[in-house]
């Protein structure tokens, strides 16, 4: 090990939402003098508004700190921030790969949550040194001894050794810094070997192009070096390299063990893929760092502009979002009911929600999203297999040999009293029970195999309701498996509504069809004529409701002189009208296209 490496520590923080990761990060920045309290505008690492609001980290970031430890040595600490949500588990795994250690933050009141466990397992798989800490020990509801015990059960750290801190007050932060230096091993790697730099994140900057955040595993990168990305063999010059403090600080070299950034006029963020390896053209590494894969979307939804004029704006906005989010995919889609839009693929539900919200907030776009669905593998009678991410592209029943759907392994961590209710929920969602383990006397880890399609909507909400908010949940994809699935279609006055097609398990189709048309009946206002609502599998109608014709629609009195009120009602109605979509001759409000989502309200 070179001497400079012995004074580097690369680490990340693993924590559940709200357990205090960002606050702790702020304290570390402060304690190391990386920025003063005055500069500290709450939770600097979460630089997107949305992140700050939700208290979660969507994109990972990194920051370099200097720390003079008790032994008088000056250390470089690289904190690599990781996203906290399951949708981004691949990004998490790459960020973890860039570290030698992880600080596991657990809320002393709430205890360990499912997401923490998933990320913790990832950290263990990556051979990281884990430093557990109990946070928020100053809060009234804290149960540090119980939670410390569950940490011992989980990773073997002696309960009495678990560091107790308060990121809020700063209590214990100094000890934590000392432990980081003492326990986390310094990076290894040969600065003279061929270059291997792991891209653990990338961001897009309008002026500089794609900026890759890297951890150098082997070799040394110098400013101006000709480099290439090993997955796609794209070549660039390292025009600027440097380290990440509060701002980017250019340097002349980045050596094995260091963390920094590379700017090379990369126009497209899709060329700087997370997990990829950068090497030098002159002296290339023989193999890349393992673990790279192309991230594939798991959840799909149709995005349609409420106003058809906005189609091009929507495309431009998605283009812009993709600059910073290589995992976002989309292609044009046409719907009879909703017009021109896009089929958008996401890593998961949170990812979808974030994209939706960013379109609204950053681009002011009003969109309708169709019910999310997963990707199916359809095997034809002739043996050929196609992938279907849109219910409307499902081949005819006669051509299908079998349909396979993605399954996930789910872990649910819950106070034991809710196990019964949660098992019922999983059963209803076609789950297969795997195992239950107890983390401590009060909390259990429930494992199930579930079809992904059963959790893409309202599963999480149900889980929270049943457990009164205490259970947490995480999942990972396991495999595609054959299921008895059918396409459920909805017709409005005989016209099939493509935007309302769903793929469901045969056993659930009848109930779903019934509920769906009933909900639509509530949502579709009376028209001049009677409207028939039908749910069908193939040509067979399985449920029907009728919206009676509107017979009377007249305001009796124009309220003395209060014309404004009547006019405002009219204006409101007019606004509502704009949001209506035409199916045949029927005006359908946009909420109706989300009827499936609100069926159980």
């Amino acid at each position, binding site marked *: 090990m070179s001497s400079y490496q012995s004074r580097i520590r690369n680490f990340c923080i693993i924590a559940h939402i709200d357990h205090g990761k960002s606050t702790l990060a702020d304290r570390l920045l402060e304690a190391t003098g990386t920025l003063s309290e005055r500069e500290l505008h709450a939770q600097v690492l979460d630089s997107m508004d949305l992140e700050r609001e939700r208290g979660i980290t969507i994109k990972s970031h990194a920051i370099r700190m200097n720390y003079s430890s008790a032994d008088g040595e000056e250390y470089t600490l690289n904190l690599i921030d990781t996203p906290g949500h399951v949708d981004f588990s691949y990004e998490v795994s790459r960020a973890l790969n860039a570290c030698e250690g992880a600080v596991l933050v657990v809320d002393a009141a709430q205890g360990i949550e499912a997401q923490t466990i998933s990320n913790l397992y990832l950290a263990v798989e990556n051979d990281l040194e884990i430093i557990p800490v109990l946070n928020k020990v100053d809060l009234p509801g804290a149960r540090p001894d119980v939670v410390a015990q569950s940490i011992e059960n989980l990773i073997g750290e002696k309960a009495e050794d678990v560091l107790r801190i308060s990121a809020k007050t700063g209590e214990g932060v100094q000890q934590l810094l000392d432990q980081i230096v003492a326990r986390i091993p310094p990076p290894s790697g040969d600065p003279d070997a061929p270059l291997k730099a792991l891209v653990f994140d990338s961001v897009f900057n309008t002026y500089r192009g794609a900026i890759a955040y890297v951890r150098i595993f082997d070799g040394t990168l110098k400013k101006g070096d000709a480099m290439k990305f090993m997955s796609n063999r794209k070549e660039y010059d390292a025009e600027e390299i440097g380290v990440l403090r509060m701002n980017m600080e250019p340097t002349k070299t980045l050596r094995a063990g260091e963390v920094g950034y590379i700017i090379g006029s990369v126009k497209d963020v899709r060329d700087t893929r997370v997990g990829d390896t950068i090497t030098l053209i002159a002296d290339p590494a023989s193999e890349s760092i393992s673990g790279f894969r192309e991230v594939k979307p798991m959840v799909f939804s149709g995005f349609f502009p409420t106003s058809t004029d906005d189609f091009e704006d929507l495309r431009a906005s998605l283009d812009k979002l993709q600059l910073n989010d290589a995992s976002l995919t989309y292609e044009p889609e046409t719907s009879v009911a909703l017009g021109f839009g896009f089929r958008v693929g996401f890593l998961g539900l949170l990812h979808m929600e974030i994209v939706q919200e960013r379109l609204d907030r950053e681009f002011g776009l009003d969109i309708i999203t169709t019910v999310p669905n997963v990707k199916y593998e359809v095997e034809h009678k002739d043996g050929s297999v196609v992938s279907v991410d849109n219910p409307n592209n499902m081949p005819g029943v006669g051509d299908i040999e079998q349909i396979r759907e993605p399954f996930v392994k789910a872990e649910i961590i819950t106070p034991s009293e809710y196990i019964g209710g949660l098992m019922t929920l999983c059963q209803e969602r076609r789950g297969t029970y795997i195992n239950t383990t107890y983390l401590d006397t009060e909390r259990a880890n429930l494992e199930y195999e579930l079809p992904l399609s059963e959790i893409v909507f309202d599963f999480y909400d149900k889980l929270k309701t049943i457990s009164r908010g205490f259970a947490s949940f995480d999942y990972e994809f396991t495999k595609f498996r054959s299921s008895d699935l059918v396409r459920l279609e909805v017709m409005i006055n005989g016209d099939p509504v493509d935007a309302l097609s769903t793929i469901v398990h045969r056993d659930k189709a009848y109930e779903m069809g019934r509920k769906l048309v009933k909900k639509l009946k509530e949502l579709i206002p*009376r028209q*001049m004529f009677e409207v028939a609502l039908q749910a069908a599998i193939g040509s067979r109608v399985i449920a029907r409701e009728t919206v*009676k014709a*509107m*017979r*009377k*629609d*007249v*305001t*009796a*009195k*124009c309220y*003395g*002189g*209060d*014309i*404004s009120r*009547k*006019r405002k009602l*009219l*204006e409101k*109605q*007019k606004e509502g*009208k704009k949001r209506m979509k035409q199916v045949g001759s029927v005006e359908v409000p946009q909420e109706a296209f989300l009827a499936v989502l609100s069926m159980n309200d």
Partner: protein
Amino acid sequence: MAGIYIHVPFCSQRCSYCDFYFVTTAKSYAPYMRALQQEIAFLGHTYGSREKIDTIYIGGGTPSLLHGDDVTLILASLAEHFDTSEVTEITFELNPEDYSDEYLRYLKHAGVTRLSIGVQSFFDSDLQFMNRSHRSQESEAVIIAARQCGFDNFSVDLIFGLPDQPTEYWAANLEKAVELGVPHLSTYGLTIEEKTPLHKQIQLGKVVPVRDDEAAELYRFTMTYLQNAGYDHYETSSFSLPSYRSRHNQGYWHHRNYLGFGPSSHSFWWAGLPARRWANVRNLKRWQALLEGRHSPVELREKLDLETLGNEYIMLRIRTSEGLDLAELEHTYGLSLYDERIVELAWLESEGLIRPIRNDLVQLTDDGKLLTDMVTSKLVTG
């Protein structure tokens, strides 16, 4: 020529369906009268010399709770601060339980030319359901008395579509009004307004509102019955024998200027763009206090551009039997529905909701009248 509306916010009890502003606890009307005179003087200062007054409408609430002297005082005060020399109509809302020959004669003497009588129904069960404070015999007696005291020009309010009201009752109500020779009828379909006792009862499931097909039948029956009896259906809810239309109300539908006095009253003034609408605070005490402190009692102010006015015109005029004048809409409001809504107009005609357009007039058919709001929403722009 402008109109004046005076809101008298007192009631003896609360009608279950009413969402107008009123109080049932006033011990003295003196503070109200003082503030009202103050307000008349204020507005008179600004508007008194701008336009002559054509119609005055004293409504509520229950104006007939006021002493006759107060009515005289109000009219005198208006005469002092406005040019009322050419007033052609002074309407006064009267509740059946408040009438006496003496009171009616006093009103006549004070200058009231037209009564609007809150009969609502000639059946006790209906009146009880609405929590009205009069009985059915008063409903009839007040009409006879009004005529005896010299009021030929009066209007009677009737409400249809009460939950559980037998259809025959509604027919009987209309029959009674026609039989009594009532020259003007305002028939209102019961509207369930939020924050009323009726709304609450419905939410609690104690009362089931009539279905809209039933209400449609009642309205259609009303139109047919009264048209056969010689009444002119000149606005959505207004029927009159020849020459008995309400001039004041027609002012609202013709964008005539009007000034409102009293808490919650509304005003409209259009003398150059933007036109303005404003409304007083909906609170008697605050309205009084503001006026006493020589402050404006207005709480809502709106400026209306030409397109908004045009849309108001569509909304208001489509309700009248004259109909919506597309030529006037174009030259006064700069809105051409021939350009903007030709598809909708053709559709409405093909559906039988409007008559074929002649002389640029869009007029509702009886089928169209049942769906006035829907038709309006098809025609407004923006």
